[in-house]
């Protein structure tokens, strides 16, 4: 009897010890999992006939128009710190590297536009041009601020990180004041995050036509918030003012706690409006890659959030944010001087993928 008690006690002690050790090991493992990045995505090699193939050809054609000095100026190593050197600030305040649009000859400009045209959608390229023209308007406006080298369409820069390739990762970076296009290409996959399309003035006249580079974003967002019922609006509208992007330039690798209304609470028509709004950012990219990204965002809709700050009347200035597992969009009208109110004519936006900025899930670590 005594022997049995001893054996049972020893067994219990051994079991408890083993359990404790295993539990500690599991704890360490859990921590690793929680801090680990999202799992890598499969990379499919590109063909010359698909979008990547056409973009690679356009990039090589552009490089062929440059002399050695030009090629050296535009080329950076894929893993160089140039990757995160972008901003909404104007040139002169924030130094950019690469080829300056104003220094390019006609053939080189045409080749650059062909490259952007191959990589982006038709509406994406149009948006880029409108943001650049808006900056030109800012430079030449007769309100006494123009004339200098800080603003204007000449102050946009192109950089290529890595050699254009059908298989190896490379990146197109194009930006200046209120614009940062960061397109990472790995095989067939094209990733547009992080990118920053912004505008000032957000409405201007060009050849007597009214141009609003971010007009559809604004109008579709107001249509969405007004399509929500009172209870949904109560959840979506944040009771505080937001006067700047939370995760703008320089905020790589961060994820904030989501807020607002969960998209799972929206009906089918409201969800369609939200997806249509999201496509204003996703659709800057070529149609092939944008379709794949939109499908991913649609699949993640139940875990996506929509938040709003400001009035809901069309024509007023309001901030909004759409946040999901693989999506982060902010639209932020800037504060007016002195008044403290938000300015509808000066807008910053950001488009990120918290799991895949700069193609992090496609690039071998």
């Amino acid at each position, binding site marked *: 009897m005594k022997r049995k008690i001893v054996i049972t006690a020893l067994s219990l002690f051994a079991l408890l010890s083993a359990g404790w050790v295993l539990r500690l090991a599991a704890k360490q493992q859990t921590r690793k999992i929680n801090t680990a990045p999202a799992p890598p995505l499969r990379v499919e090699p590109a063909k010359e006939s698909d979008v990547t193939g056409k973009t690679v050809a356009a990039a090589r054609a552009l490089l062929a128009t440059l002399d050695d000095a030009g090629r050296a100026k535009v080329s950076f190593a894929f893993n160089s710190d140039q990757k995160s050197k972008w901003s909404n600030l104007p040139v002169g305040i924030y130094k950019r590297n690469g080829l300056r649009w104003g220094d390019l000859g006609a053939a080189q400009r045409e080749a650059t536009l062909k490259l952007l045209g191959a990589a982006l959608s038709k509406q994406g390229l149009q948006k880029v041009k409108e943001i650049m023209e808006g900056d030109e308007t800012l430079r030449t406006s007769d309100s006494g601020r123009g004339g200098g080298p800080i603003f204007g369409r000449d102050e946009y820069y192109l950089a290529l990180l890595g050699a254009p390739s059908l298989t190896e990762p490379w990146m197109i970076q194009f930006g200046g004041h209120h614009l940062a296009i960061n397109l990472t290409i790995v095989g067939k996959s094209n990733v547009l995050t992080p990118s920053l399309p912004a505008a*000032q003035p957000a409405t201007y006249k060009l050849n007597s036509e009214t141009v609003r580079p971010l007009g559809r974003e604004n109008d579709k967002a107001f249509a969405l918030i007004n399509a929500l019922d009172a209870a949904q609006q109560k959840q979506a509208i944040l009771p505080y003012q937001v006067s700047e992007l939370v995760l703008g330039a320089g905020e790589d690798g961060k994820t*904030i706690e989501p807020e607002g209304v969960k998209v799972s609470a929206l009906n089918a028509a409201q969800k369609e409006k939200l997806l249509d709004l999201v496509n204003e950012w996703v659709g800057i990219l070529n149609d092939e890659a944008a379709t794949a990204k939109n499908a991913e965002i649609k699949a993640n809709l139940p875990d996506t959030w929509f938040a709003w700050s400001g009035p809901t009347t069309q024509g007023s200035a309001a901030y909004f944010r759409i946040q999901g597992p693989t999506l982060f969009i902010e639209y932020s009208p800037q504060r007016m001087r*002195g008044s403290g109110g938000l300015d509808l004519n000066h807008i910053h936006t950001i488009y990120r993928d918290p799991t895949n900025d700069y193609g992090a899930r496609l690039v071998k670590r």
Partner: protein
Amino acid sequence: MRRLLFWLLCASAICMTAPAHALDQYLQIAQIALAPDGARVELRLIPGVQVADRVFALIDVDGDGQISSAEEQAYARRVLQDVALEVDGRRAPLALTGIQFPSRREMNEGVGAIRLDLAAEAALGAAGEHQLSFRNDHLPELGVYLVNALVPTTSEIKISGQARDPFQREMRLRFHGAPEDTRGLWPWTGALMLCLCLALFFSQWKRLRQYLRRCMEIRNHIV
């Protein structure tokens, strides 16, 4: 002449930037990260062009036009006095863990960010519901505030609610602490119980076999 040209260019850049960005305010961005052993606050303070001189004067107390290391430390301590962190209603003292100051030129251009890294020790991962509040009262007459909580990088903490005042000077977070120790206990307790049952089963195997045999004999007898 070149120097004059440089300063003229700088001045024109500032004049032209002013309309492009709201620079008459002191943007103060706080990002709060929760961890099982405490909270970390990243503060970025960006004075706009039109208030840069005023903020610079607060830092450059001896007025020599330069920011010395001692002046950086003194200003950081001043900011530290203006911010407060509370956990479960009790003040959690914030300590300065990092300081980064921009150049005078960057501040003049309205793009210089003063970065202060703050940290407070607290058992945020302790089991149960908790509350954390952060308040920034630094230069409210100039300040425009943004405060956000980052998604915790551990599953031991789950944020369940957040609230702010209309100007984002104050943020209150509700979160749940679930230490791995507690959460991991149930499966192991289950495994232990199973082992005990098996140990009991095998230790009583002889008696059980005898009982089963007797049952079989009775059954055969009846049949």
